[in-house]
């Protein structure tokens, strides 16, 4: 059945014209159902809401009023109430309650426990045993044994036996204390109130024992936990006594409390008042301070100053300091508005501070072989806490007074340090000069001065000192810092304060340098200095977090990367990060800042070199174990950098940059893809593409490169790219992994080929190769490709090649590339060319028909029908049906696809209607005949 098949002539312009009015029947006039929802409105609203929670934000958009949007405006009654109550609450809070900005004790606990540790053996000396040394772990204990230990305990209690637990490790100690805490709860639950009180008294007695002094702060934390438990138990018990018939409100007064509850409460206070020893009496009374609320209005307010004064009776300054801290802690919790006793506590502390250097303390230190500086650090949690309580929302004059008093009373370095840490940075910064004076004059007493500068630096890093003083401050601090010769030695000594210091100092300088406008040189010097100090003995290894924050600080100030990288010490500074993970993290943070703040494209060699170095570091961290996510984010960062690089019209430079980048980032595929995109401007990706592993990125990049080449009138390159694409087609695997799942590659391949075919329309033939060289090549490849069994993909390609051929035979092509002559102009409608096309069409149709026959044999009639219908569609759209044979073929195909009834009637009907519609066109009248021969087969 060899027939001359030809494509019908097309007038694309006219067709487009015909289509247009139908395609856009709706005038986008004033009315449209979707119109009132305006983007501008939502935007402005969102902005206003983000800004504040206040109810005054009104959107000023000119958009028509949308009832919904006005509801959401924040002015609705509900949110107004909410806003009002919030502000009211806020006011209340400011008056008395401690706000969320007050760092609670619970957050200090862990830090103290972790910091003050010991390897020495500890002992617990209890008069009343609750020793459960033999008790097995909970859950496994037999009842009888439990009872026995209970009985033993009771015996212990009655005998008042003294029991000393020796040789406890720190962990043992903590466990014992926790056991005591448990037995306190048990005793309470079983109504043994006296035993509970005894436990608490014995525990607080432990706080007067300062042997193994390094552990004291941790001991304090552990034991005050028990006291807190006790305080809560007593308070809750009395509270429940009054909650009949209904619970007491939170703001209850003395009048709401019944006599029984009052009597019970009073009893507790009498009992506690008769505790023989001072320290337990103080601690236990402080623990139940809150219970004063049940007795009278002024109880707390009278008790606090009294307890504060009683602490003066504690001879050991460390024990006293911690008792004060506990009292302040309870006071802050129960009556935060009573600031006076907080202040009193601090003044008393100052008053007794000279005892630190007293004989008793010194003897003790000698005995325990503890150095003075280490001993002093034991105070810091207590003093810091007291000062934190005082400084919380304190008025400026008070802080000034505190400062003056510190100055007067010995001007001790430790105190000064705590003051600088506790007070608001703004306050400290405003008086930076004063503080420096104090630091210079202060009595060092084993507390190194550069640590003081560290604390000062901490404040200055958060707040700016007055403009005029900056340079002086810088100079003064500089003098001290240069004297710190070997920080690593200091590190060993005072490991806790010290490690923060050096870096705070450095940050201060960076900060100060920045604000005093001498930026680059100073910072560079600081960096040089840090390097100098940190390099010996690889001290930097212990200080990565600190060094990292130096980098962070620098990055916040230097967002101009040309300035940043022109500091010659910056990269050497980076080199100090020698641990891979840290290094990559640092690079990453630099990259992030770069991508965020580098707005303009750059070709600055300094930036490029440095950034390449940084990116290389990140790239080199990628290994076989790197997670995909990690790789992706690294690649994104590097791509971000590459995108910012532009040499303008200097293609040679750009190319060499890309070549260098390619060499550097060969492990990260997305980066290479980006590079190819970048370089496509120069059409030199030929070498890079093959190195990609994903075949589809290769294919599409070839195609893309080819298109770009065409657009740039580089015909031979385009040809080469497209040829290469065709060349690798046979290598496309049958299945590829998409998002981790193995999927057939067929649909991707079909997509690609269709895309490719569409491009081929405008590709002019190579003068040395034959007519339609590329099309033939592609079709040959398609022919040879091992398609999946039972797949019509090959035939589908043939079917979709037909429209291309049809389009190629037109006088004017559907699209073209400016300044590139396509085949339309090359051949100018040459009959030879047309006959070539026709031949090709014939071959293709022949192939398709063969395939259809084969399908008929295989009884896969459904596929046959679908295929036939698509061929029919192509013939209808592109074939010249005036040709009898062709129209006969079309009719045959129509019948074929309806033969087995697999054709959807709806589509058939629509197709018929379309043909009838087409037939009304003046040059398409022949279609009427065809239509009459197309019979609709009703489904059987």
């Amino acid at each position, binding site marked *: 059945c060899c027939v001359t098949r030809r494509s019908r002539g097309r007038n694309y312009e006219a067709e487009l014209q015909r289509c247009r009015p139908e395609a856009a029947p709706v005038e986008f006039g004033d009315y449209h159902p979707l119109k009132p929802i305006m983007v501008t409105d939502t935007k402005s609203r969102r902005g206003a809401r983000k800004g504040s929670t206040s109810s005054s934000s009104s959107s000023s958009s000119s958009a028509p009023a949308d009832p919904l949007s006005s509801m959401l405006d924040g002015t609705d009654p509900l949110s107004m109430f909410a806003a009002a109550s919030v502000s009211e609450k806020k006011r209340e809070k400011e008056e008395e309650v401690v706000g969320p900005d007050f760092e609670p004790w619970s957050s200090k606990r862990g830090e103290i426990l972790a910091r003050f540790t010991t390897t020495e053996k500890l002992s617990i000396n209890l008069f009343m045993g609750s020793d459960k040394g033999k008790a097995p772990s909970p859950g496994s204990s037999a009842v009888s044994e439990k009872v026995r230990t209970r009985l033993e305990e009771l015996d212990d209690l009655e005998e008042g036996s003294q029991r000393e637990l020796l040789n406890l490790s720190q962990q043992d100690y903590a466990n014992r204390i926790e056991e005591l805490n448990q037995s306190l709860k048990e005793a309470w639950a079983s109504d043994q109130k006296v035993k509970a009180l005894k436990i608490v008294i014995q525990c607080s007695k432990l706080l007067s024992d300062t042997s193994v002094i390094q552990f004291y702060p941790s001991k304090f934390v552990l034991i005050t936990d028990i006291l807190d438990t006790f305080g809560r138990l007593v308070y809750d018990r009395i509270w429940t006594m009054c909650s009949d018939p209904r619970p007491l409100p939170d703001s209850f007064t003395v009048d709401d409390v019944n006599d029984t509850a009052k*009597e019970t409460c009073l009893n507790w206070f009498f009992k506690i008042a*008769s505790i*023989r020893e001072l320290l337990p*009496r103080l601690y236990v009374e402080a623990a139940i301070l809150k219970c004063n609320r049940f007795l009278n209005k002024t109880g707390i307010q009278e008790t606090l100053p009294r307890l504060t*004064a*009683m602490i003066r*009776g504690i*001879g050991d300054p460390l024990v006293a300091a911690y008792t004060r801290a506990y009292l302040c802690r309870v006071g802050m919790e129960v009556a935060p508005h009573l600031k006076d006793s907080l202040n009193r506590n601090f003044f008393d502390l100052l*008053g007794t501070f000279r005892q630190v250097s007293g004989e008793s303390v010194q003897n003790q230190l000698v005995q325990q072989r503890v150095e003075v500086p280490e001993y002093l650090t034991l105070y810091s949690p207590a003093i810091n806490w007291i000062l934190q309580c005082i400084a919380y929302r304190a008025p400026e004059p008070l802080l000034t007074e505190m400062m003056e008093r510190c100055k007067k009373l010995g001007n001790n370095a430790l105190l000064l340090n705590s003051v600088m840490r506790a007070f608001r940075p703004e306050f400290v910064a405003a008086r930076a000069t004063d503080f420096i004076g104090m630091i210079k004059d202060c009595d060092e007493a084993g507390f190194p001065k550069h640590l003081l500068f560290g604390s000062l630096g901490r404040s200055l890093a958060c707040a700016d000192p007055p403009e005029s003083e900056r340079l002086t401050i810088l100079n003064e601090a500089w003098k001290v810092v240069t004297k710190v010769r070997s920080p690593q030695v200091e590190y060993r000594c005072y490991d806790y304060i010290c490690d923060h210091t050096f870096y705070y100092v450095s940050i201060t300088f960076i900060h100060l340098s920045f604000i005093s406008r001498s930026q680059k040189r100073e910072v560079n010097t600081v960096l040089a200095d840090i390097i100098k100090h940190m390099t010996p003995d690889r001290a930097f290894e212990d200080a990565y977090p600190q060094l990292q924050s130096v980098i962070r600080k620098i990055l916040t100030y230097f967002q101009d990367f040309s300035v940043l990288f022109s500091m010659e010490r910056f990269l050497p500074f980076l080199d100090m990060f020698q641990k891979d993970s840290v290094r990559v993290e640092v690079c990453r943070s630099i990259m992030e800042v770069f991508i965020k703040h580098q707005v303009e494209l750059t070709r600055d060699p300094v930036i490029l070199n440095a950034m390449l170095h940084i990116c290389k570091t990140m790239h080199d961290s990628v290994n076989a174990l790197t997670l995909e996510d990690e790789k992706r984010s690294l690649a994104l960062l590097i791509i971000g950098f590459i995108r910012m690089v532009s040499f303008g019209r200097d293609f040679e430079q750009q190319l060499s940059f890309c070549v260098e980048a390619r060499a550097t980032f060969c492990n990260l595929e997305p980066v290479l893809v980006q590079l190819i995109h970048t370089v496509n401007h120069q059409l030199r990706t030929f070498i890079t593409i093959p190195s990609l592993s994903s075949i589809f990125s290769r294919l599409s990049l070839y195609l893309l490169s080819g298109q770009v080449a065409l657009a740039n009138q580089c015909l031979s390159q385009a040809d080469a790219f497209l040829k290469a694409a065709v060349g690798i087609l046979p290598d496309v695997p049958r299945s590829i992994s998409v998002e981790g799942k193995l999927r057939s590659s067929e649909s991707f391949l079909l997509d690609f080929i269709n895309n490719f075919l569409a491009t081929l329309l405008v590709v002019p033939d190579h003068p040395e190769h034959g007519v339609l060289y590329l099309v033939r090549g592609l079709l040959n490849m398609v022919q040879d490709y091992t398609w999946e069994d039972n797949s019509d993909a090959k035939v589908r390609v043939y079917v979709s090649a037909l429209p291309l051929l049809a389009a190629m035979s037109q006088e004017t092509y559907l699209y073209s590339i400016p300044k590139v002559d396509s085949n339309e102009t090359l051949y100018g409608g040459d009959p030879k060319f047309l006959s070539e096309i026709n031949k090709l069409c014939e071959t293709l149709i022949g192939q398709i028909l063969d395939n259809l026959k084969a399908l008929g044999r295989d009884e896969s009639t459904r596929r046959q029908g679908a295929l036939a219908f698509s061929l029919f569609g192509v013939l209808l759209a592109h074939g010249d049906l005036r040709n009898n044979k062709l129209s006969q073929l079309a009719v045959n195909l129509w019948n074929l696809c309806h033969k087995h009834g697999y054709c959807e009637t709806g589509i058939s009907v629509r197709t018929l209607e379309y043909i009838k519609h087409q037939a009304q066109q003046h040059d398409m009248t022949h279609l009427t005949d065809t239509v009459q021969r197309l019979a609709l087969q009703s489904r059987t």
Partner: protein
Amino acid sequence: MSVTLDIRLKRANKVYHEGEVVAGVILLVCKEALQHHGISLSMEGLVNLQLSSKSVGVFEAFYNSVKPIQLISSNIEVAKAGKVPAGKTEIPFEFPLITKGNKVLYETYHGVFVNIQYTLRCDMKRSLLAKDLSRNCEFIVHCQPQKAKVVPTPVNFTITPDTLQNIRERSSLPKFLIRGHLDATNCVISQPLTGEVVVENSDVAIKSIELQLVRVETCGCAEGYARDATEIQNIQIAEGDVCHGLAIPIYMVFPRLFTCPTLETTNFKVEFEVNIVIVLHDDHLITENFPLKLCRV
């Protein structure tokens, strides 16, 4: 068959004054109806005196304990013989706290040789087969507040080696100077004893400073009288080597029951003293004594 008998006073703190009415309920809880031969309630106030073995011989102390002095006594029949229904039964009662003649109700006091105690006792007589039930309940009497106003008289003191008595070798004493004051020695019993103590200087470190509250009880008897001083409580106000020159508060709450307003009668006396005890690190014990006069306002 379980029965519980209890006396519940109306006042939670159980404190009454002369002329007031002691009111409360007798609480009976039983599972079944209970047959009884009458329930009676008695109130009694007694002063028990005991001679210490120190003052007189051991045997005399045992045998010759002075006859208790009755301050108040009354008895009422709460219920005649009959039945108490099953469940919870409350029988209210009231006793006027009025003495006969010119007797005075002393304040409740629990001491060593002198005890002043007021009790309510409820008795339930039952048939021969069942045991009689009885229940005691102490209530507390506070004497009438004194009319005269208490004018606090502060007492200053200075302790140096030279002010001490009762020492063997004055020369072996370390040097020290301790100053201070008590805000008052005529104290209101419901308010704490207050004052200040300052260690001005001391060659030897201080180990502890304590307040020792002491009762001085005097009992008259045929052979004369016995006077004994015993410790009530010892309260530490300073521990360790306290800061010199810093005022340390003296603060002590008078314990309930164990203290009462200073009492002087024809048969016995109850007085109080406070000792400020300073223990030095070399275990020297320095005591300064202050007689107190307690009163109620």
